[in-house]
């Protein structure tokens, strides 16, 4: 029996047509509104590398590559997602009163189609049950405060699945039962229902059919309004994911060759500095809002959120969407709402970010959280001049003495005294020491250890001495893009004047900025973190290093591991009894010092470094090995606060020098 008959003397498809018109109309209208909002954003040309984009789309979207990293929720989602892809054509069949299946029958595809749809419903059903079990029974911490909406929607979708099986079963029952084994679950349902009398059965089938159609229509209306917008939003998000190297930032203005326009030639009259208005974002930054599924993986890994600060990266993405929704009509009319994007994010949240990129790395649908925060910082610094007071010190110091502490620029090479190094001469490698390695007593020791090891191995290298400047990263991550660019331009000039091709640095921020960002400012170099060069020398036995005796754990610096892509060289360089922390390699947890945070005040009860220091202590290691001067400071401070001063914090190079044989 089928539900395709007259109701109250009117044919079933009249009702269906009316309902479809409402549901589809509402859906299209709302999606259109969102598309118009997203198109308010600035250009961002990502319509290139189509082959790569297709591949990424197949693995990341269709293949759910990153979704399944979370085993329970991820696979549940994948089952529902794949299930729905398989079953979605069933709605055409049900909407046409079985004409679609008939058509498929003519081309001998009906049976296989029936099987696919049935398995699809089954997969979705299993996924939904797992998801409901997770929400109602397991109840992970991050879902404790989530609204009932999620559960309701899961039940509604489960309703769609069950009613589909009932309607399927109805087809097989009636005056004479004929079980279609191409629809195995349908058969199962039919067998359960076979003893029901015909008229009751007809009612059940009718109710199920209309419930099914109402739920699907309702779902269509609901999709653009809630986090289910990700059903559509993830398509452009995954397809047009960022192809720049992780952690790189956009220059103020680029020319036709995608190089930064020189500071002297910037067109300030037509330049928006950073983001304060909805339409200051690029379209792709805006589309993130509707791609977010609120899975909260970004929140789980965010050092700011986990240390109790105002920032929740997921909320930032929600804010973009909600701001657009709430002020949509004004925005589309070209008017400016009283509330700005900065107001919505809140300055406290904007300044809490360490730019560690853990959120971006964790997001299954390629949402770009960090640039939203650094772009609003640009606005706050360069347009509004409204930023934490401590940063004014930082900017003045960088400007006057080209180091964050404002110490005399002429003392930059003092650490090298007595080491007999080449200073400001051409050499195979340039050892770019960086500010901490040049001015901070603790980190000067790292510079000395690195230089001694390089000399020991006979590497031809030079330092820049007083010619060296800060690479500009602290200014940049703090929003002062203009200052960064001026410093980058000067540094590139100086480095090029030495004929620099290869660079070694012990600072991951120098490593990242010089290696990945300077290209746009005219500086193309091969940049190595000192652990990479030192490890290579160790492997080639140019440095004979015995294994480290102490129990040691390595804290991956964000800009070396997750962002820099190097997690093995430091470990091999250290050697010996290495114990891993709970979170390591690409999943390492920030020390709290990045994103210029080390120059800002941090509430004593909300310290990121203490969380990380605790993880290090939990390993039972005697020594925390680091590969970044800021991690050095933050981890040492963290251990001190925990009263674990007896544990040492050492740079990779220091450990190697200690264990140098002969």
């Amino acid at each position, binding site marked *: 029996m089928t539900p395709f008959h007259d109701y109250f003397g009117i044919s079933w498809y009249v009702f269906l047509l009316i309902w479809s018109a409402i549901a589809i109309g509402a859906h299209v209208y709302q999606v259109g509104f969102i598309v118009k909002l997203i198109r308010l954003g600035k250009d961002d040309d990502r319509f290139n590398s189509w082959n790569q984009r297709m591949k990424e789309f197949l693995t990341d979207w269709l293949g759910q590559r990153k979704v399944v990293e979370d085993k329970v929720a991820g696979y549940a989602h994948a089952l529902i997602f794949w299930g729905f892809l398989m079953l979605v054509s069933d709605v055409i069949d049900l909407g046409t009163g079985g004409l679609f299946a008939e058509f498929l029958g003519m081309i001998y595809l009906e049976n296989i189609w029936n099987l696919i749809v049935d398995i699809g419903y089954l997969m979705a059903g299993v996924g939904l049950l797992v998801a409901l079990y997770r929400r109602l029974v397991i109840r992970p911490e991050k879902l404790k405060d989530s609204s009932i909406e999620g559960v309701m929607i899961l039940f509604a979708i489960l309703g769609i699945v069950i009613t589909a099986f009932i309607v399927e079963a109805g087809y097989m029952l009636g005056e004479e039962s004929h079980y279609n084994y191409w629809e195995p679950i349908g058969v199962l349902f039919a067998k359960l229902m076979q003893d029901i009398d015909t008229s009751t059965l007809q009612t059940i089938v009718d109710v199920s059919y209309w419930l099914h159609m109402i739920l699907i229509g309702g779902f269509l209306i609901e999709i653009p309004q809630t986090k289910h917008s990700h059903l559509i939003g993830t398509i452009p998000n995954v397809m047009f994911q960022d192809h720049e190297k992780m952690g790189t930032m956009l220059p103020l203005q680029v020319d036709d060759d995608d190089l930064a326009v020189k500071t002297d030639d910037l067109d*300030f009259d037509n330049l928006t*500095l950073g983001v304060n208005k909805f339409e200051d974002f690029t379209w792709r930054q805006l589309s993130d809002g509707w791609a977010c599924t609120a899975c909260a993986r970004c929140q789980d890994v965010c050092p700011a959120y986990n240390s109790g600060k105002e920032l929740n990266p997921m909320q930032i993405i929600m804010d973009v969407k909600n701001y657009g929704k709430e002020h949509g009509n004004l925005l589309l009319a070209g008017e400016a709402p009283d509330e700005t994007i900065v107001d919505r994010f809140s300055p406290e949240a904007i300044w809490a970010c360490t730019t560690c990129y853990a959120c971006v790395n964790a997001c299954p649908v390629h949402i770009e959280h960090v640039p939203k925060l650094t772009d609003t910082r640009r606005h706050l*610094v*360069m*347009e*509004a*001049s409204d*930023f934490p*007071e401590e940063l*004014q010190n930082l*900017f003045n110091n960088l400007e*006057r*003495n080209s180091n964050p502490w*404002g*110490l*005399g*620029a*002429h*003392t930059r090479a003092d650490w090298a005294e007595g080491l007999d190094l080449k200073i400001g001469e051409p050499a195979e490698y340039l050892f770019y020491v960086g500010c901490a390695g040049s001015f901070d007593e603790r980190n000067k020791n790292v510079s000395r250890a690195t230089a001694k090891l390089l000399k020991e191995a006979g590497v031809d290298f030079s330092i820049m001495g007083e010619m060296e400047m800060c690479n500009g990263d602290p200014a940049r991550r703090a929003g002062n893009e*203009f200052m960064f660019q001026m410093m980058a331009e000067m540094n590139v000039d100086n480095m090029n004047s030495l004929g620099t091709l290869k660079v070694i640095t012990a600072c991951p921020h120098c490593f990242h900025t010089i290696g990945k960002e300077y290209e746009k400012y005219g500086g193309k170099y091969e940049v190595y973190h000192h652990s990479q060069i030192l490890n290579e020398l160790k492997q080639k036995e140019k440095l004979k290093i015995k294994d480290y005796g102490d129990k040691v754990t390595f804290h991956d610096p964000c800009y070396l591991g997750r962002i820099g892509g190097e997690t093995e060289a430091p470990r091999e360089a250290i050697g010996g009894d290495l114990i891993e922390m709970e979170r390591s390699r690409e999943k390492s947890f920030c020390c709290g010092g990045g994103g210029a945070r080390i120059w800002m005040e941090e509430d004593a009860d909300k310290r990121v470094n203490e969380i990380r220091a605790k993880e290090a202590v939990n390993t039972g290691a005697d020594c925390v090995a680091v590969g970044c001067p800021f991690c050095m400071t933050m981890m040492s401070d963290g251990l001190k606060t925990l009263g674990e001063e007896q544990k040492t914090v050492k740079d990779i190079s220091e450990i190697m020098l200690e264990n140098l044989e002969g």
Partner: protein
Amino acid sequence: MNIAVLIKMVPDTESKLEVNDGALNDQNFKYMVNPYDEFAVEQAVQFKEAEGGKVTLLSLFSEDNSIDTDLRKMLAIGADEIVVLRQEGYRGDKPLANAKALSDAIKELDVDLVLCGIQGIDYYQAATGTMVAQMLGMPNISGVTSLEYNSGTLKAKRQIEGGLQTVETSTPAVITCQKDMNKVRFPALKDIMMSKRKPFENKNVDSIDSNDAVTSKSSLPPARDGGEMIDGENAEDKVNKLIEKLKMEAKVI
């Protein structure tokens, strides 16, 4: 209210200080705006924002124009124009001569108020501001930590031993500003760019043969290579030695 702010360009605080044959080597100095004068600029701009008028920055320096970029930043804070008096053989340690050149230039401006920092962080004479006041026949209040203006009357708080003195005067007057008198704003990039379009006038002035006391010999305090660890038989002995050193060698207590 029209305001003149006197700005001294001083060697950066972290400059390398070298003495050769009794003379300070000033060849490698990089110059910056004297930090005390920044408070004066900020105060002037705040008055201008409240009262209207014009803020003219007046600086005296040699022909060396490497200072221009840093000086221009004061325009970004909100001052209207800069006049740099270019003087051959200018020296920062001749307050009498410098006050003469500056006060002559102020006479040509029509100002109600002259502001400057209490002292330069180079020679620490704390002299030029008050000298300018005397030369202009204006009253002055020095070392001011807060300043209010109300229809022709200035009310200033200045630091004195153990307290604060509140002094009032009518304009015109000269006020020298103490550290932390206000919070100097950080100019937005747009303001920095706009400041490039503001007037920046260079004006040659004659060298002045003054009665300033000249430095006959500069010297560095006794060098203490990398610091000195004080040893002693006991704590008492160490403390005594430390106090002796602080008094006699470093001359800081």
